[in-house]
């Protein structure tokens, strides 16, 4: 019998990426995104795929799934979603200075959390976060922890001391083997994340997250200086110049569209 795997899943609370572009605002004087009023944040979508990957491993055998997050202003109903999907525990590092950290600092905090809550066999995360789209915290985490890394998993098959990962490519996939412990990023090709069940939601409501401070993690603000300097954040101007093609009916509009594109030698 296989011993229980310990799986850490790193997740991030982000502004809802489905927020309509018209509600997306930036305060250019401080280079910050202004949260859209009335739109609650969400757990980053790719991170939910990572939670799903961990839960599939748990379904297939014995595993303990611990969700880790770094941030500020956590909305508990949002952050408990992985618990209601079936994760066992939630650990939060929450501090004012942890607001909108860059990737290097996030790596430093997550690495300290993993060392404190570990050891883990698998450390999972989404392929990228829908806010800053940097796609490199897990890679940094692997370097910081001295572990190998496999990215863009669409299937994870843990064996005895070795994990076999199907890695999504733009045209196909690769099969990669890595020794455990290993850091793995998960992509949407894995398949949809499960919906929380009512039972799961009830169970999650009774669980309280473990909360860690920078002191608990032995970190100070000095370790969290940004590595790159954000000089400017702005919404690019886009002037709509669409030429709408109309016709007697929709079929006629289709015909006229083809003629117009031909007229300009575009087709």
């Amino acid at each position, binding site marked *: 019998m296989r011993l229980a795997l310990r799986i850490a899943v790193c997740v991030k609370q982000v502004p809802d990426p489905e927020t309509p*572009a018209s509600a997306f605002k930036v305060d250019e004087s401080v280079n910050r995104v202004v949260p859209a009023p009335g739109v609650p944040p969400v757990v980053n979508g790719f991170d939910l795929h990572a939670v799903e990957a961990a839960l599939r491993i748990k379904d297939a055998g014995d595993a303990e799934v611990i969700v880790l997050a770094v941030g500020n202003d956590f909305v508990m109903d949002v952050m408990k979603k992985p618990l209601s999907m079936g994760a066992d525990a939630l650990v939060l590092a929450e501090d004012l200075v942890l607001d909108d950290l860059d990737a290097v600092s996030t790596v430093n905090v997550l690495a300290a959390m993993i060392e404190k809550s570990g050891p883990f066999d698998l450390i999972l995360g989404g392929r990228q976060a829908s806010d*800053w789209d940097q796609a*490199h915290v897990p890679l940094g985490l692997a370097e910081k922890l001295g572990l190998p890394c496999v990215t863009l998993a669409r299937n994870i098959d843990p064996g005895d001391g070795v994990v076999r990962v199907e890695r999504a490519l733009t*045209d196909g996939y690769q099969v990669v*083997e890595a020794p455990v412990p290993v850091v793995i990023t998960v992509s949407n090709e894995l398949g949809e994340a499960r919906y929380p069940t009512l039972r799961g939601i009830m169970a999650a409501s009774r669980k309280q997250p473990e909360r860690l401070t920078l002191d608990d993690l032995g970190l100070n603000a000095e370790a969290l200086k940004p590595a*790159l300097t954000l000089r400017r954040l702005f919404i690019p101007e886009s002037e709509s110049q*669409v030429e709408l093609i109309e016709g007697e009916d*929709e079929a006629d509009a*289709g*015909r006229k569209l083809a003629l117009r594109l031909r007229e300009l030698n575009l087709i």
Partner: protein
Amino acid sequence: MAGILVFGEVQYGAISAVSGELLAAAGKLADEGVDGGISIAVMGDDLSGVTAAQAPGTDHVITISHPSLKDGGTGGYDAPLLAAAALAESISPDVILFAKSDFGAVVGPGLAFKLGVPVAQDCIDVAVESGTGRVTVTRPVFGGNALAVYGFDGDNVQITTIRPGVFDPIEGEGSGLIEEFDASGVVSGARTTLVETVVQESEGVRLEDADVIISGGRGVGGPEPFELLQELADILGGAVGASRAACDAGWVDHSYQIGLTGKSVKPTVYLSIGISGASQHMAGLSGARNIVAINKDGDANIFKSARFGVIGDWAKVLPSFTATVRDLAG
């Protein structure tokens, strides 16, 4: 040595088009004041087809050949990363450029963290800051809703990955020196192993190379309409693409996906059908010259970027469009 080191990629045995885009970005930085020349490095298990002529604008073409760097080192992670780190430490460039590709999106940041320096991912512009001579980059953030400009302060090596399809590939023939870098000592320490690569390329024209793309989204409603899209693409000698929603729904394979986490394309005509145009999808279209939208929702975001549009039910618009195109094609 200073200068710019480009990590290029090899496709069908030769230095790839996306590498030419990186050389264009490198050329821009050199023009703006990064001294020390431009080198390009490529990795693989068999680089016998790589020549200096394939890398215009470079002084050195550095090949790193090793069995564990098979398929350009995209899968193993550890082996290409160790090789990249060894080369970077050996030549100490001021700037290192990767493509944001299956290879560069992983090895670029991995290298930065290994060297303990910052990295800017998925950049659409690079520039040299007057005064400091340091690099600044522009990158889309929040799924393309905003642009961020970052500066590399200090004096560390500046590592950047460049979004494919944004820079026009540099043209001409290179005449630099070609030399082999021996990384066999370091790559043997790799912990991850590439077992196999399974290529599932869609038939016909590659999306990245297509001059015409017919693309379907959630609004087409199912897998069957993609046959109609394919029919039109065949007449026009183009390729079929899809939004992530259509791929996640299982209507077409993920190799069709265009957008932030899919492919970046640069067709002359991009005909989008039933695609709302979320910024994450538009992120793959930075290089598309004429976006044409058919969508029943006149408020859909796609019309903000489109040059031509029809507001209507695609199921009624597309058949007559295809029939007219067929007639015109004679």
